[in-house]
C-alpha cells in the first residue's frame, strides 16, 4: 500500500505511449520530404490559417450556444426533486451513448432535402436548405456536446449552500438578484469546465463538418485527417499548432477560473 512501485508499469506506459508519440510529432513536424531539418511543414501549415480561424469560430459559436441552452437547464435541474433530477440526467446521457457516427448520420437524415424537417416546413410554406452550411455544422456540434455543458454546471450548482440563498432572500434580494449575485458567481467553476469540455473537442473534431457542412466548412481536424496519410510532416506541424492552441486555451481558462474563485 505504501509502495510507489505499483505505478512503475504505468510510468513506463506513459513514457512509451504518451511522451514518445508527442516527441515524434515534434520531430516529424520539422522534417522535409527527404527527412532533413526544415521549416517547410510549418510554412505549408500556415497556408491553412483560414481553416484554423473557421474551426475556432465554429467551436466558439457552438460553445456559446451550448452555454446559453445549458445554463437555464442546469438551474432548473437543481430545483427538481432528486428522482426527477436522476431521470433528466439519464435522458441527457442516453443519446451520448449512441455511436458518434450514428448521431451525425441521424442529423443527415433529418436535415436532408425532402427529409422530415424539409417536408414539415414545406407544408408550412417555408422552403430552405438545412444541410451543407455552417449552421448545420454548429447544430451538429451543439447536439454532440450539449450534455458536456449541462452536467458540470449542474454539479457545481447543486453543491451551492442553500443557506447562502436564504440569507440573500432574507436580506431582501428578489429571485433575479439571487440568481445574479449568488448563484451565478458560485457556478463559474462549472461554467469554466463546461466551456472547456465543449470547446476543446469541437475545435478539433472532424467528420461533423464533412457530413453536415458545405465545402467551405472544412475544419482543421478534417485537414489533418486528409493530409496525414500522404504528408506526415505537414500533418504533424498542423497537429502541433492545434495542440499548442488548445493548451494555451486551457491555461487561460484555468487562470480565469482561479481568479474568479478567489474573488
Amino acid at each position, binding site marked *: *500500500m505504501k*509502495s510507489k*512501485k505499483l*505505478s512503475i*508499469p*504505468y*510510468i513506463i*506506459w506513459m513514457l*512509451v*505511449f*504518451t*511522451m*514518445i*508519440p*508527442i516527441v*515524434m*510529432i515534434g520531430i*516529424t513536424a520539422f522534417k522535409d520530404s527527404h527527412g532533413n531539418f526544415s521549416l517547410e511543414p510549418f510554412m505549408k501549415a500556415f497556408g491553412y490559417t483560414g481553416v484554423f480561424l473557421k474551426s475556432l469560430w465554429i467551436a466558439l459559436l457552438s460553445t456559446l450556444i451550448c452555454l446559453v*441552452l445549458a445554463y437555464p*437547464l442546469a438551474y*432548473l435541474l*437543481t*430545483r*427538481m*426533486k432528486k428522482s426527477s433530477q436522476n431521470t433528466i440526467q*439519464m*435522458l*441527457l446521457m*442516453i*443519446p*451520448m*451513448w*449512441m*455511436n*458518434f*457516427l*450514428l*448521431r451525425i*448520420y*441521424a*442529423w443527415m*437524415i*433529418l436535415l436532408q432535402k*425532402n427529409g422530415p424537417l424539409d417536408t414539415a416546413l414545406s407544408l408550412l410554406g417555408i422552403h430552405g436548405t438545412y444541410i451543407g452550411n455552417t449552421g448545420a455544422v454548429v447544430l451538429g456540434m451543439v*447536439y454532440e456536446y*450539449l450534455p458536456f455543458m449541462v452536467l458540470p454546471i449542474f454539479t457545481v450548482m*447543486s453543491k*451551492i449552500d442553500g443557506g447562502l440563498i436564504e440569507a440573500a432572500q432574507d436580506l431582501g434580494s428578489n429571485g433575479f438578484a439571487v440568481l445574479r449575485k449568488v448563484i451565478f458567481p458560485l457556478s463559474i467553476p462549472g461554467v469554466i469546465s463546461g466551456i472547456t469540455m465543449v470547446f*476543446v473537442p469541437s475545435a*478539433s*473534431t*472532424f467528420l461533423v463538418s464533412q*457530413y453536415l457542412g458545405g465545402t467551405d466548412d472544412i475544419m482543421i481536424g478534417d485537414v489533418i*485527417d486528409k493530409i*496525414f496519410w500522404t504528408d506526415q510532416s505537414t500533418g*504533424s506541424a498542423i*497537429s502541433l499548432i*492545434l*495542440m499548442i492552441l*488548445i493548451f494555451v486555451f486551457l491555461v487561460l481558462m484555468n487562470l480565469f477560473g482561479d481568479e474568479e474563485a478567489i474573488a
Partner: protein
Amino acid sequence: MQKKKLSVVSKIYIALILIFLYAPIAVMIIMSFNKGNTMAWKGFSLKWYGELFQNNVLMGALANTLIIAVLASLLATVLGTAAAIGINNFRGKTRAVLQNVSNIPIISPDIVMGVSLMLLFSFLGVIFHFEMGFFTVLLSHVCFCVPLVVLNVMPRLRRMDPSLYDAALDLGCNQWQAFYKVVIHELMPGIVSGMLISFTYSLDDFVITHFTQGAKFNNLSTEIYSLLRRKIPPTINALSALLFLAIIIIMVLINVYERRAEKRAAKLK
C-alpha cells in the same frame, strides 16, 4: 436550494431540449421499419433487421468493438488502479508531474493523439515487422482509458484513511489480504465507475481507431464510416434502433441497481 414546482415555461423548455436530443434518434428508428430504401414511407417492414443480422461485416465489426471495449477497460482498470495507488504515494512535485502527464491523453485533442500513436506504431512496425490491426487498436484504447481510471480512483484514495490498511495488518491479515480486503474494497466504487467510463469511451471511439486500425481491422464506428462514404444502406437505421434499445435496457438496469444500493445504504443508517 428550495424545491418549488417548476413553472409551465420551465417545463416546456426542458421538453424542447429533450425533443432536440431525441428527434434524430426517433426519425432513425421510424425509418428502420420503412419498406422502401429512401426517405419516402413505403409501408411497415422488418426486412432491414433481417438484412442486418445477415450482414457478416457489420456483425463482425460489432464483435470487434465489444471485444476491444471489454479487454481495454479491464486492462486499463488493472493498470490504472495500480498506478493511482502508486502515484498517491509520491509527494509534492513528482506527484503533480505524474498526474499531469497522465492527464495528457484526456486533455489533448483526440485527433492529435490518434496521429501521434499512428506515427509510433508505424515506426515500431518497421523495426519489429508488424502491421497495425487488433493489437494496435487495443493498445491505443488502453492509452485513453487508463487516465480515466486514474481520475476516478484518485479521489477515493485521497478520502481513504491510511490507517485502515495498518489496522488490517495488526489484526492478522497478511499484506496481500490487507490490500485485497481493505484497500481494493474501499476503492471499489471508483474502480467500477472508472471501468464503466472506459468501456463506454472505447465503445464510442472513432478517431483513435481510425488512425491505428491498419488496413484490415474495423470496429463499428470505422465500419459505419466506410459505409457512409458509399451509398447509405438502411440497415444502419436498424442497427441504430437496436443499439438504442440495448442502451435503454442497460441504463434501466444500472438505475435499478443504484436504487437498490441506495435503499440498502438507507437501511444501514
